[in-house]
């Protein structure tokens, strides 16, 4: 386990370095330079003053050669200093630190709604024996994924905020201010959970061990809960990284619509203004989140299925190669064991 963790941490560091470097290169390949935007003119579209641009470039060290800027930025980043926003002059850590709680709150409620809705829908779709109802319920996630977040958000606002005045339209804090944006964001994410879990439940249900369990006299509900749910949920955990990506990307739209001061909106304004230090800080933050989520998921697998832990041990003794996250053959093994 120690070696496994060391490997994962080394992997995480590599991912962070790559994220930093790629974002640095991409941002510097863009046609405009951020200082001319910051030096005025961006608001009205009227031209900026060349002297002011030169002054600002010197201030942020942007007049130095590219490789030198890269080393300086990397060195600072290693010490936890991500620099200053070119637009507002705030430190990057401060700007992100102020916006993070709002987005974390939004993400937590979103996941709760999405999990309850997605799992509920998947259960309903696979439990019913009526084909028409099963087909109808199974088709719902496609709609959830297809409807643009922007549209859902404005629709919910129109009804719950402008018409019935049940929730604030902007700047929401607390539960009443977070419920509408979380619902908006939970719709596509819950849909993905429902889709993946439905197919997991259906596949597992078709395995021979289910027949064995049913033949032994277990009720359908009992078999589903005791034997099917755990292995069927593994693919859902596998896509956790994708779901986190959905939340981060969706937050950009949702936080703009609901005027929430979160990381998504910070991303949007920073990208529009090409505020390179802020964008880089957000890229790094996203990388940390992805790496952490995937690590946590990998650690959850053994809890869901003891045989994966057994494989960890075999990896350590070198008897078997392969990623512990590989879940493709799990249902087969489950079937064998049953």
């Amino acid at each position, binding site marked *: 386990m120690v070696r496994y963790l060391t490997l994962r941490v080394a992997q995480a560091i590599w991912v962070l370095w790559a994220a930093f470097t790629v974002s640095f290169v991409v941002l510097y390949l*863009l*046609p*405009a*330079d*951020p*200082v*001319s*935007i*910051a*030096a*005025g*003119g*961006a*608001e*009205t*579209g*009227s*031209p*900026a*003053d*060349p*002297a*002011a*641009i030169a*002054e*600002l470039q010197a*201030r942020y060290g942007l007049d130095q050669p590219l490789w030198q800027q890269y080393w300086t930025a990397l060195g600072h980043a290693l010490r936890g200093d991500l620099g*200053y926003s070119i*637009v*507002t*002059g*705030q430190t990057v850590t401060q*700007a992100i630190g*102020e*916006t993070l709680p709002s987005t974390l709150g939004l993400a937590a409620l979103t996941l709760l709604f999405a999990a309850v809705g997605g799992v509920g829908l998947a259960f309903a779709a696979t439990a019913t024996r009526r084909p028409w109802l099963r087909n109808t319920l199974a088709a719902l996630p496609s709609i959830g994924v297809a409807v643009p977040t922007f549209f859902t958000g*404005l629709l919910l*606002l*129109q009804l719950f*905020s*402008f*018409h019935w*005045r049940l929730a*604030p*339209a*902007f*700047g929401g*804090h*607390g539960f009443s201010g977070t419920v509408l944006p979380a619902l908006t964001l939970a719709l596509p994410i819950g849909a993905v959970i429902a889709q993946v879990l439905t197919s997991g439940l259906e596949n597992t249900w078709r395995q021979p061990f289910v027949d064995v369990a049913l033949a032994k006299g277990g009720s359908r509900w009992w078999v589903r809960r005791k034997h099917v749910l755990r292995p069927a949920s593994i693919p859902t955990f596998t896509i956790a990284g994708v779901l986190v990506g959905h939340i981060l990307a969706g937050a950009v739209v949702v936080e*703009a*619509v*609901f*005027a929430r*001061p979160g990381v998504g*909106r*910070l991303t949007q*304004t920073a990208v*529009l*203004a*090409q505020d390179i230090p802020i964008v880089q800080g957000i890229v790094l933050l996203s990388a940390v989140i992805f790496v952490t989520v995937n690590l946590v998921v990998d650690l959850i697998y053994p809890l869901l299925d003891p045989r994966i832990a057994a494989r960890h041990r075999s990896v350590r003794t070198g008897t078997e190669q392969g990623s512990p996250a590989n879940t493709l053959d799990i249902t087969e093994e489950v079937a064998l064991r049953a």
Partner: protein
Amino acid sequence: MIRTRHRIATLAGALAAASTLAACGSDTGGAGGDAGPPQPGGTLRYGLSSAPTCSDPAQASSNQTLYVTRQIVDSLTDQDPETGEIRPWLARSWEAGPDAKVFTFHLADNVTFSDGSPLTADSVRKTFDSITKLGAAKAPLANGFLINYVGTTAVDKLTARVEFSKPNAQFLQASASTQLGIQGEATTAKPAEQRCDGSNVGSGPFVYTAYRQDVSATLTKRPGYAWGSDVFGHKGEAYLDRIDFTVVPESGVRTGSLTSGQLDAVSDALPQDLPLLEAANARLLTTPNPGVPFGFQPNVTRGPLRDAAVRQALLPAIDRRQLVDTVLGPQFKPASSTLASTTPGYQDLSTKLAYDPAKARTLLDQAGWVPGGDGIRVKNGERLSFNVVFSQVFAGNKAIIELVQQQLRKVGVDLRLDLVSVPESTARQNAKDYDSYYYNTTRADGDILRNSFTVEGRNLNVRERIPALDEVLENQLSAADTTARLALIRTAQERILDNGLWIPTVELSQAIGAAGTVQDLKFEASARLQFFDAWLSGR
């Protein structure tokens, strides 16, 4: 704590708005006049369309930033939005030297900053010195106003003498600007970044009580304020107890929040929202921005626009009335000169800009541009085709330029649209990579013509010296006599058009959506909001 109060205020506002159901008249222009005598008190909740970039008036340039920062500082002078005249504010009187290099201000007595320190001539010196220290990068507009600044001398406690190394006649108007608003030493001693965190100390009618970058700004009334400008509608303290600015980027949400009573006023209301606003008893407050109206600035070194006759022919080829009627709506105006109609010294040149496609065709025929097979004119194998680089900083830009494209096609000119992001637009403009560049600039002083059109200025025309024009633009800076200066600015507008250096289209207007309860919310001379006289009725 602030959050809770905010929610209570939101609830109260919702109830108030729910009880007003009367249909609205067609009063979309001015403030409602029949609401009775002003009542002090209350919180005005305002929705900004984008975040203020900084809490410091000196570093402010965007409209949304200025709506906030204008309220916390007083300026040496104020500018009458009706006449453009400079009127007393912190300075009760002033003298300008004969060559517009020295300006002496006599300050009002007993004025204090919000931290209790007194306003003195030294405050003026420290404010202006700190602006030059911020530099053109952090405070581009303020440093432009203080061009060739030598220093400020405190002649006595309440007399400040500001000196420039070269004539700077625009400075008197600039002394009325938010950017040159006087701040206390608690602020002016700080570095640029720390002046952005909402700690600014001014002598204005409101003070910051909370400032969260990208989120909100809360201003409260300054008790005991008694040194308002001569332009203000009343004496003493402001009426409003509090102004809550919240950033609401999505325009549909701003309008919905206004009509459902969650906000009292919002920025950048769209013309198409007008029926919704009127149905909710709200109004649209508008004013045309002074400065250079929207238009095309030709690069005279590239393509057919090198030909002065082509540039001349473009002026009558554009139907500006149609642009306004089709794309923008009644609160906008067609451009009628190189300056917008609300700029002091504006010269009405609408006869030169009258729509006359026959005249355009004749000019092009005479210059040897003859229609080719596809209707686009050709001369010596060159097609009469040029591009325009523009960005969507103003939502109507694309539709307007598309309509101009159709209008120009009718006279045989091919306009190619090059819509770019704001960053790329800046890059293209720096590289002078465009046939023409489309934009506008807001400034309530004709000196904006010098910034935009002299060879030494930004010179997006990429032109050589034209003595008859450049001399006029430079001389207006040394004309201490206002009448003489305005005459020079009038001449400059005409010469810019005659050289085809600006092809104007429409004047930008500010459009503020305001609930029926918002009274006397006014625009200052530079078309930014002044909340001092604003009050809430029917609370």
